[in-house]
């Protein structure tokens, strides 16, 4: 809440603690028979051995019904024998959770609809977290992140798992990013990066292209490389065969 002064490095820091996103395989148990669980899991591992080698695994207990008791020790041993590293469980009841914890497993959030990725933007290293992208996203996943004020120099907006719509100008030195498409109903003078998580089908639309940098899924172009004749016109940018295609709308 307070204005944070520039931290003076007193001693060199040993750690840097921040959130990060990981996609993890989840094993949903439909049965408490650890023998048949491990047999069927072994079958899957054989199909893609490299993928499963030392892979972290989350075990979902949600389908077992409460009061279902499962031999945790046997389950852990069998999974580890397959070369997999169980790291946590979700969807367990009290008894299952405490059993899991006694085996050193973490308890993970049981939110089926949202992945952990959603919570990130608040902790994202945006120097000024301008529009808390996560807040609006968590409530309605489908509607795009809407920004109605000009995005000023030095500000950064990131629409997680969504499109971004900006109803004003994007100043030079500002950055707008989205996992989906970016629509700017104004002048784009800063940087626009669409498809940040890898979606190559995303596009950037703006009413006036004067961008410092445009990128779709990592393929980028800087201002110098953008055709001068396109300046001042409504444009659409998309990816075709790994190169950016900029067209007048």
């Amino acid at each position, binding site marked *: *809440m307070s*204005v944070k002064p520039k931290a003076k490095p007193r001693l060199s820091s040993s750690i840097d603690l921040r959130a990060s996103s990981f996609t993890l395989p989840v094993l949903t148990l439909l049965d408490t028979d650890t023998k048949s669980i491990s047999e069927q899991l072994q079958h899957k591992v054989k199909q893609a051995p490299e993928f499963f080698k030392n892979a972290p695994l989350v075990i979902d207990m949600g389908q077992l019904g409460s009061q279902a008791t499962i031999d945790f020790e046997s389950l852990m041993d069998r999974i580890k024998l397959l070369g997999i590293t169980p790291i946590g469980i979700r969807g367990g009841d009290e008894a299952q959770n405490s059993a899991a914890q006694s085996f050193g497993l973490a308890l993970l959030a049981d939110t089926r609809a949202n992945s952990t990725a959603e919570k990130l933007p608040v902790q994202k290293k945006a120097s000024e977290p*301008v529009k808390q992208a996560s807040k609006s996203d968590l409530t309605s996943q489908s509607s795009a992140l809407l920004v109605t004020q000009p995005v000023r120099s*030095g500000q950064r907006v990131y629409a997680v798992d969504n499109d971004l719509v900006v109803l004003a100008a994007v100043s030079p030195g500002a950055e707008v990013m989205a996992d989906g498409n970016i629509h700017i109903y104004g002048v784009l003078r800063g940087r626009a990066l669409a498809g940040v998580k890898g979606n190559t089908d995303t596009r950037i639309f703006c009413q006036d292209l004067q961008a410092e940098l445009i990128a779709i899924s990592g393929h980028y172009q800087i201002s110098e490389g953008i055709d001068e004749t396109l300046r001042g016109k409504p444009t659409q940018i998309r990816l075709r065969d790994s190169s950016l295609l900029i067209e007048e709308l």
Partner: protein
Amino acid sequence: MARTIVVTSGKGGVGKTTTAASLAMGLALKGHRTVVIDFDVGLRNLDLLMGCERRVVYDFVNVINNEAKINQALIRDKRCEDLSILPASQTRDKDALTEDGVGRVLDELAQDFDFIVCDSPAGIERGATLAMYFADDAVVVTNPEISSVRDSDRMLGILSSKSRRAENGEEPISEHLLLTRYAPERVKIGDMLSVDDVQEILSLNLLGVIPESKSVLNASNSGTPIIMDEDSDAGKAYMDIVSRYLGDELPHRFIEIEKKGLFGRLFGG
């Protein structure tokens, strides 16, 4: 309850202190109890522009550190009894300013004054962020030139996210653009950005335009806020700005090249 105005810019040397001095003097001349505070610890200038540099005993940092009472540090202006100046420290550095300390001093001043004008230092570091943290209004001083415009844009971003109002989710700081050192002849030939060019990038409420004027240097040399020079165009423009800030709707002067007619040239004007 006082209204706190921060005069800021991001870029250095655009006219913040000149503006803070004239804005504060203008408000005081209209009968409002006004205090102007220099936030530029270590590089203080406000006392020079106000002509009170020989009367500084205690300063802002002394008050924050409880080494002096506010009334011991405040300097009453000799020309206008409604105006007081709180000078910055010259010997300390910006770390001497703390959010709590500044907040406490501003709260105390708010009880006795109608307007608190905060003269921000250049940059976006501690002094600048503290100067704008408690503001209700912001006057963003900009020269019609690209680096100043970009720095002002950056400052606007900071105003909208790092102020106390932004952090508490209150109504945001009311932002105003002040274009200084404007030269219509250079705008005409395309050397200088026009008001419209600047507005296209910043999109702010235009508080006013101050024309480039030689009298500004004379004013700062003599320790008199330019608003008191009724003959200078810059002084007149600042008078307009004070009126506009207080709610009057006035047309913007000094934006067009003045065409002196025959009579104008014969009789001066």
